[in-house]
C-alpha cells in the first residue's frame, strides 16, 4: 500500500503525524466481512434471513431462556434430530424458537406465524437451521458460522460496536430492498433545519462519494452542537442498495462519538471502511 493510502487508513483526517495504526479483528456480518478495531466490542447483533431471525448464542442459554418463557410456552414441536424447539405466545403473537448445538455455539432461530401456519414456520426455520455451517465465512454470516442459503429477498443485519474506553459507537446495518433507498442519510439541509429548530447548529465536515467493498455509496460527516449537550460528531456511509438483490442490500454505517473522541472515531472509521469486503454466497 502506498504511503498516502496508509495515511487515510490509519489516521484519516486526524493527520498522519503521530497517528497509531488501528489493530483490526475481522467479523463476518451477513453478506460482509468487516475489520473492527480491537478496542471495540459488539454490544448487540441481529440477523434475519427469509424473515427468520437467526443468532449464535452462548451454550447453556437455552435453560435460562425456557425459564424466562415459563407459562408462555404453548407446545414443543418435534423438528430435526438435535433441535430443541418451542412455540410460545407473546400477547397475540405465536412465535417459534428453536436451537441446535453446532460446534461451540447454540444456533437459534426465531420465527412468528399466523395460527394454522405453524408447520410452514417449522419447515422454513428448520431449513435455515440446517443450512448453518460452522467456521465458514461464505453465505449469510452470523458470527461463528454462516447460513448457506439464498440470497433471500428478505435479509437484514444490525450490529453495534462500542469503544471499550471511548464514546465511539459504530452501527452497521444492511437490508435487502425492492428499490434503491435514496433517502436515508442523504439530506444534510433537513438535519441542519432540525438542529436549528432545537436551538443548535450543524456543521458539515465532509460529503463525498465513496466506494466501499466495490459499492458506490455516499459519505457524510457532520458535527452537531445543541444547547446544554456535549457536541457530537456523526459519520455516515450509505449505499442505496440494488432492488431484489440480497448480495447488494442497502447498507448504512453510522459512526458517532462525543467531539472529544472525534480523533478516535476518525481513526476507527478510516480503518473499518476500507476493510469491508463481500463474502462469497457459497
Amino acid at each position, binding site marked *: 500500500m502506498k504511503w498516502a493510502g496508509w495515511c487515510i487508513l490509519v489516521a484519516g483526517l486526524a493527520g498522519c503525524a503521530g497517528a497509531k495504526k488501528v489493530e483490526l479483528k475481522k467479523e463476518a456480518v451477513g453478506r460482509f466481512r468487516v475489520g473492527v478495531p480491537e478496542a471495540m466490542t459488539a*454490544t*448487540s447483533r*441481529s440477523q*434475519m434471513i*427469509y*424473515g*427468520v*431471525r437467526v443468532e449464535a448464542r452462548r451454550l447453556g442459554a437455552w435453560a435460562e431462556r425456557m425459564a424466562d418463557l415459563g407459562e408462555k410456552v404453548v407446545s414443543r414441536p418435534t423438528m430435526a434430530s438435535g433441535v430443541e424447539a418451542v412455540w410460545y405466545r*407473546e*400477547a*397475540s*403473537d405465536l*412465535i417459534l424458537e428453536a436451537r441446535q448445538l453446532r460446534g461451540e455455539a447454540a444456533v437459534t432461530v*426465531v*420465527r*412468528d*406465524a*399466523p395460527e394454522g*401456519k405453524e408447520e*410452514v*414456520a417449522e*419447515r*422454513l426455520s428448520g*431449513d435455515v437451521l440446517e443450512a448453518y455451517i460452522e467456521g465458514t465465512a461464505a453465505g449469510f454470516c452470523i458470527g461463528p458460522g454462516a447460513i448457506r*442459503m*439464498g440470497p*433471500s*429477498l*428478505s435479509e*437484514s443485519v*444490525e450490529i*453495534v460496536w462500542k469503544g471499550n474506553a471511548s464514546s465511539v459507537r459504530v*452501527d452497521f446495518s444492511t*437490508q435487502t430492498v*425492492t*428499490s434503491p*433507498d*435514496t*433517502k*436515508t*442519510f442523504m*439530506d444534510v439541509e*433537513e*438535519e441542519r433545519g*432540525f*438542529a436549528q*429548530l*432545537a436551538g443548535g447548529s450543524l456543521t458539515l465536515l465532509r460529503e463525498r462519494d465513496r466506494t466501499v467493498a466495490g459499492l458506490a455509496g455516499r459519505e457524510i460527516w457532520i458535527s*452537531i452542537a*445543541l444547547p446544554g*449537550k456535549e457536541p*457530537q460528531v*456523526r459519520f*455516515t456511509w450509505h449505499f442505496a442498495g440494488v432492488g*431484489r438483490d440480497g448480495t447488494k442490500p442497502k447498507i*448504512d454505517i*453510522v459512526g458517532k462519538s462525543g467531539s472529544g473522541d472525534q480523533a478516535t472515531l476518525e481513526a476507527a472509521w478510516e480503518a473499518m471502511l476500507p476493510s469491508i469486503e463481500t463474502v462469497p454466497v457459497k
Partner: protein
Amino acid sequence: MAKKHTVDWNKVDEFLAGLETTEKHEIEVRREAIPLVFVPGIMGTHLRRPGTNGEGEDADGLPNLRWSTDTGWMLSNLIFARSNGARRRRLLVGTPEQTFNPKYLEVDEDSPPGDGFRGIMADYHKFLEVLRDHDWGLLNKYFVLPVYAVGYNWSDDVKNAGTYLAKRIDAIIEESRKVTGLCEKVILISHSMGGLVTRTASEISGAQGKIAGIIHGVQPVTGAPGAYWRMKAGFEGFNSLGLVQRALGNDGPKVTAVLGNIPGGLQLMPNKVYQTTDQKKAWLTVTTEGKVGLSLPRDNPYKDIYEVKAIVHPKKGENPSQNTYWGLVDPDLLNPEKAAPEGGDAHDAMNAELDKSWPRYLQNLKLAEALHDELCPEGGVPKQHPHTLTMTGIGHKSVSVIEMQVESNWVRSDPYPNQGFRGFFTDAAGKDWQAVLQDPAEIGDGTVPWSSGAALEVPKRPPPGDVRLKAEHQPAYEDKAVQAWAIEAVTAMVKQRYHEQRKGQ
C-alpha cells in the same frame, strides 16, 4: 386555646349544635379539591419498556425510553439516527416477530406518578404552570384546584387508555381527599387525541360521575383526514410543524411503520360520520382535469378505504390497471424488516405465506372501528359528558378532504417522496399515469379540520361556550386566547359545582 371544628364549605350555613358557650371555638372551612387533570394528545406521553426506569439500552441496542419529546432524545434517536420505518417500528411496536402488544410500552412516570408532569411532553408544562399559578379569586374560598397530568400509552386502543384514565381519576380523587378531606370530582382538560380518551373514560369506562366537566381543545371528534395524508405522505411541510411532529417521519413508509401497527394511530382516522367542511360524506377524491373520477367513501370508510390494500404500482401488462393505490396502508410498509416481495425462491414464498402484518392491521382496524362506533354512533350524536366545552382551532390550512390529481407520468417511479405520495396506474391503452396527493386548502388548526373539531358543539352552551379560535394544533394551549378561554371554562365548571352543591340553600 380555641376548640377546633371543621365544616365542609357547602355546609357553612347549617346550624352548629352542641358548642360549649364557655369555650372559644375556631371553625375551619374545609375546601373542596377539584383536581384539574390534563390529558395530552397522541405522542404527548413519554413511553418506556415495562420493567425499566427508562434509562439505558436493551439487548437490541435500543433505548429503554422508547418515546420522548425531549429534544435530545428525539434528535439522537429519530432525527440524527435517521430512523427509518424499521427502526421506528422496533422502538414502538417490537421486534419483527412481534405485532402490537398493549403491554409492550408503559408511561414513563414515577411510582406513584405524583402530579404526572414527568410523563408528558414538556411543552405542555407551560400551560399547566399557568393553571397552577392562576389566582382563582373568590373560588379559592371554597375550592382548591390542584393540577395533574395523566399520560397514557397512546399506541394502545383508546378504550384501554380511557380505562387507565378512569383509574387514575379514582387515584387522584383519593389523593386529593387525603390532603383536603373533600374531593369528589375532577375537571378534565384534553388536547387532541386526549379528547377521545377523556370521552371514553367518561362515557364508556364509567367515570362520568367523577367528572365535573370536560374541556376539549382541538379534538378530532369525527377523525382527521390529515391522519390519512400523513400515512400516505409523512408529516407535512406545509405547516410550521414543531420538532416533535417533524420527527415523526417525513414520508409515508416511516409513518405507516408506526401508525399502521398501533390501534391508537388508526383511531385518528375519519370515522363513519365524518363530514367535510362542505358537509359531504366523501372526503377522498381522485380528479382528472378538475373532474372527479373517484369519490370515497361511498358508504363506509373502513370498507371503502381502510380495508383496501394500497397497491401503489400497476400490475405489469394489466391495462387498464386495477391497483387500488388510494387504500390507506401499503402492506409492504407494515413490517419493513420482513417484507416479503413477490418472486424469489421457495423459501421467499414461505416467508410471504407466513406474513401476518396485514391480518394484524385488520385486527387493529377493528379496534378503531369499535371505538368510533361507540363514541360516534351512526345516526346518533357523538357521546360527550353533560358538562362539556370545546375549543376548535381555525386559521391554518388543514386536510378536510384528500384530493389526488391525475397527471401523465413519464419518469416518476417512487410513490413515497418526502412529504408526498403518487399512486401509479395505467389506462386501457397502457399509458402511464400518476395520481398525485395534493396539499390541503381547508380551514382548521393545521391537523384537525374545523368540521371535525366542532362536531361536539351544542347551541346555547353556558358561558364561555364552545369557541373557535385562531390556534394551531400542537401548541394550541400555548396560545394566550386559548389559555384565557380554558381558565374561563374551568371557572364556569367550578361555579357549576358550587351551584350544584348549594342548591336549595
